[in-house]
Each structure stands twice: as structure tokens, then as C-alpha cells.
């Protein structure tokens, strides 16, 4: 388990992280969600003992980051947002060195490297100097470091930035596999679909603060009155507005042209009832659309700003 206890980190006059308290459970994928500059990377760096917190402490697997940094670091592997390795070296050399220095046993080193390079489709480029490669390939190599290491705590900072869709899906699968093998995964991202698809729980960061932590489904469910049902009718039936708003769960109903727009809680449960009412009042439904809150809405609700 990773525990952040009232962690703050300031750089000169900038408070990058402000009093963060939260726990990351063993073997979960924890999505750290926030825009650039929210403090995600700084929080990760304090966990990895690269930065000393200005206040508070981080405890990783029972080891205090401040007093037992070596023990903490031996548990963690980080894939940085911007690739961090010697660009004069080739992908294979980078991975060999990383595997060696992080204690991957000699017997399995080469097999793992070959396996990861092959999964990323990098076997043919494994001997090229990495400064010659594209941004996406460089990012794959950065991720590959952690997949070769297979640490107890794997940290990915924007792991799919610069990647095309197939590569992105593959990285997601590989992260899932890593968790299935027993790793705890911290996934810092500003991509909602990534956080929603991957995370068991998410922590929403804004301006250095952790404003909310929870399961994506629960967080979305907590936004009562945020479901929207849109019914496209053959022709508007004005009296329907009054009829549907009689239901306690309905916050608002209005016609936009021939579309009846209903803002409510529990849209999924009420949809059949509403359809019955509309039909009974002579409305002819052409299409029905139910929109539930997304993580984007959750983010907007808790931070007051859009992520993308």
C-alpha cells in the first residue's frame, strides 16, 4: 500500500502539491487524473524519493520514503512523461542497462527484453540509436523499461501520449497484465477515456490538491441529476414537459425543436416509464438516447474546469 500523509511540495514560490492525503491499495490500478501542472508528476516524484516533501510523508509498503529511500526505490519503476534515457544508446542497450540496474535477474533479462521489444514492434529498430526514432517510438521505449523491470509498484506518467490507437490499446493491455501479475499501478493521465477504462480507482488532482478519490463508477453515480434522456419525437407535444417533471427524479425537462430533453437521476431506470408516458400522451418517439455522466463531468463537477 502507498500512503500519502498530508504531503506538500513547494518549489521556490510555487506550491506544486498541497496537503495530499490518500492511499493507493495493493494490486489496484490507481488513475491520477488532472491537467498538466496539477501536481501529478511532483506527487509521483515524492513517492519515488526523488523529491523530499516540504511537509508530510509518504509510506510505501510500510517503508517511509524519507528515512528508507533505498527500500522504497527498489519497489518502484517509473515510466516518465518525457522519455528519460541516454538517447545516444539503442533501445536494447537502454533496456539492458535498466534491467541490470533494477535487479532483473540475468537469466530472464534477455528473454523479457526480446518479449517486450517484440510486443511493441521494435525488434527491427532495437539497435538504432534512440535519438533517431520518432516521438511515439521513444515513448514506447520509455514504457518498455517498466514492462521489462516488472516492479512491485509500476508508475506510468502519461503512458499513451504520442502513441497511435493500436499502440495505445496494446499499452493498456500490458498494464492490465502487469497488474494481473501482482503489481500496483499508478497511472497519471489527463486522458479521460484512459483513466475511465483502466482505473480501479481514480484520484482527481487540481492545482496541487487531491480533490476527490473513488471508483470511476461510484464517482459518476455520485453526480445525481446529471443523466440526460433525449427523445426525438415526430412532432413536439408541449404538455409532456409538465407530465415528466412530475417524477421526483426529474430535475428539468424542455423541448429543443422536436427533441424532448430530460435532465434527471437514474435515467436508465426511468427510461421505460418515460417512454410509456410519452406514448400515452400521443408522442411518437423516433429515437431515444440516454447520456450518463462521464468522468469528464465528474472532473468538471469537482474542479470547476474542463480537462481537455
Amino acid at each position: 500500500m502507498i500512503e500519502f500523509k498530508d504531503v506538500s511540495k513547494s518549489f521556490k514560490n510555487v506550491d506544486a502539491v498541497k496537503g495530499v492525503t490518500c492511499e493507493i491499495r495493493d494490486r489496484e490500478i490507481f488513475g491520477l487524473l488532472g491537467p498538466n501542472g496539477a501536481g501529478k508528476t511532483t506527487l509521483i516524484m515524492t513517492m519515488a524519493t526523488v523529491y523530499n516533501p516540504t511537509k508530510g510523508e509518504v509510506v510505501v509498503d510500510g517503508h517511509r520514503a524519507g528515512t528508507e529511500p533505498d527500500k522504497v526505490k527498489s519497489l518502484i519503476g517509473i515510466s516518465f512523461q518525457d522519455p528519460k534515457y541516454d538517447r545516444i544508446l539503442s533501445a536494447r542497450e537502454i533496456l539492458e542497462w535498466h534491467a541490470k540496474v533494477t535487479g532483473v535477474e540475468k537469466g530472464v533479462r534477455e528473454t523479457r527484453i526480446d518479449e517486450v521489444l517484440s510486443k511493441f514492434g521494435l525488434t527491427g529498430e532495437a539497435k538504432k540509436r534512440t535519438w533517431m526514432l520518432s516521438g511515439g517510438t521513444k515513448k514506447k521505449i520509455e514504457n518498455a523499461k517498466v514492462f521489462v523491470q516488472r516492479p512491485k509498484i509500476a508508475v506510468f506518467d502519461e503512458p499513451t501520449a504520442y502513441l497511435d490507437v493500436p499502440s495505445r490499446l496494446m499499452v493498456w493491455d500490458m498494464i492490465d497484465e502487469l497488474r494481473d501479475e501482482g503489481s500496483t499501478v499508478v497511472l497519471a493521465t489527463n486522458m479521460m477515456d484512459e483513466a475511465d477504462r483502466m482505473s480501479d480507482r481514480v484520484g482527481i488532482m487540481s492545482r496541487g490538491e487531491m480533490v476527490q478519490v473513488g471508483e470511476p463508477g461510484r464517482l459518476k453515480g455520485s453526480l445525481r441529476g446529471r443523466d440526460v434522456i433525449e427523445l426525438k419525437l415526430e412532432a413536439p407535444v408541449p404538455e409532456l414537459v409538465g407530465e415528466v417533471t412530475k417524477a421526483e427524479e426529474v430535475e428539468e425537462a424542455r423541448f429543443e425543436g422536436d427533441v424532448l430533453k430530460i435532465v434527471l437521476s437514474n435515467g436508465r431506470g426511468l427510461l421505460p416509464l418515460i417512454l410509456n408516458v410519452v406514448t400515452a400522451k400521443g408522442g411518437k418517439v423516433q429515437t431515444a438516447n440516454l447520456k450518463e455522466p462521464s468522468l469528464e463531468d465528474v472532473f468538471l463537477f469537482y474542479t470547476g474546469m474542463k480537462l481537455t
Partner: protein
Amino acid sequence: MSSKPSPLFVLWVLIERDLRTLLKSPWILINRTAFFLIQLFVFAVLVNKLATSLGFNYFDFYSVGAVVSTITSIAFIIGEDLFEEEELGLLDYLLSLPFGHSLFVIGRALGGAVRGLIYVTPMMILVAYLDGYFSPVGIVGSLLVIFVLATGISGLSITLAMLIRNANRFDITIALAELATVRVSAAIYPLVYMPKVLQPVASYSPVTSASDIVRAIFLPGYSSAPYETLILILFLVVFFGLGSAFLFRKIEGGRFE
């Protein structure tokens, strides 16, 4: 899952990284090797012809100094590497790896010296051969002397890298420091021919000490004073200590604070 590697293994892996990156920069190596060979076989041979009339074998004198100058120049690269690593954010990665900061500091200082030593060993053997010196023990001893010098120079270079933040200022300072340590010494020319004002400085230079000690090993008629060994050791202790302390302080204190 992975296991925590031993400190000795980590030290080796850190040094290995420095070796790998140096060997991946063939132009630096080719440039310095070409410089060494041209200086030795063109410059030193020509000057030797002039100096012979004075009864002085400049070729033998210079050959040792050329090796000492080369290792000095290579040992300075470590500071440039560290400076670049911090600029590129690579230091964050290195510091997140499972070893202590003190081990990292020692590894970097030694890495700078070891790669210099590996690089100049063939040159040293060539020079020993040209000077007609064939004792393996003496050659190993001379390598030890220049290793001590290179470790001190690495420390000096790291110290400068930690003290200067501006890239241009750093480049200029490193170039001047390299120029001063090599030129204000008895590596390339005898002290007696230097401007009077520089002679006292040059006579206490660690580069002079290393050059004199190796000459005393290789060449008949040369000797080194005991204080020169002391200077070399003091230089090592002071700058290895300073470089380590500055790097350690920067890392521990939070580099961006």
C-alpha cells in the same frame, strides 16, 4: 519481480553506463586519438629536432605529457555529462533507481576516471614502447598515477557542473579549466621555459605532478619530488570530496528549490 542489486554491482553498472555512452561517441574518441597521434608523431617529432641541438629529447618528454593531457581532457567530460543530464531531466530517472544517492555520487566520479583510464591505456602502452620502457609493473604503476589524477579531475569537473547553472557559462568555464590545468603545467613543456609568473602555479599543478611521476617511471634521468605524490593525493581528496559533496547536496536538497 526484481531483487535489489548489491552496492558493488550498482557501482559497476553506473561506471558501465559512462563507458557505453563514451564508446557511443566515436567522434570524440577519434578526435582525441587523432589529436594525440598527430601531436606525438608530427608536433613532438618536429620540436624534437629543434630541441636536440639543446641536448634535450623533447619527444620522450612530450609523449608522457600527451597521455596525461588526454586523460585530463576526458575526465573533464563527466561534468558536461552531469550538466546535460540535469538539463534533460535524466537525473530524475537516475535518482529514482534503486540505489543510494551517495553510491550514485561515487559511481559518477569513478565513472569519469575509469572511462578515461580505459581510453588512454593503449596510448600509455604505446608511449612506454616508444620510450623503450617495458616493465609491466611500471606501466601499471603509471596507470594508477593517471587514474588518481583523473578521479580528481572528475571531481573538479563535477564541482563546476554543480556550481554553474547557465549552460553557456558552464561550457566556457569547463573549456578554460581544461586549458588552464593542461597548459599551466609541465605536461607539454618543461617548467623552466614557462613564463616566470606561471612557474610557481605550474609546479604545484597535479597535472605536472602526474607527468613528472610517470616520466620518472618511464624515462632515465627524470625524477619526481615526494611532494608531487602528496599534491596528487591532496588534489584527489579535495576535489573528489568537493565534487561528491556538491553533487550530494544538490540531490539531497532538492535540485529545483
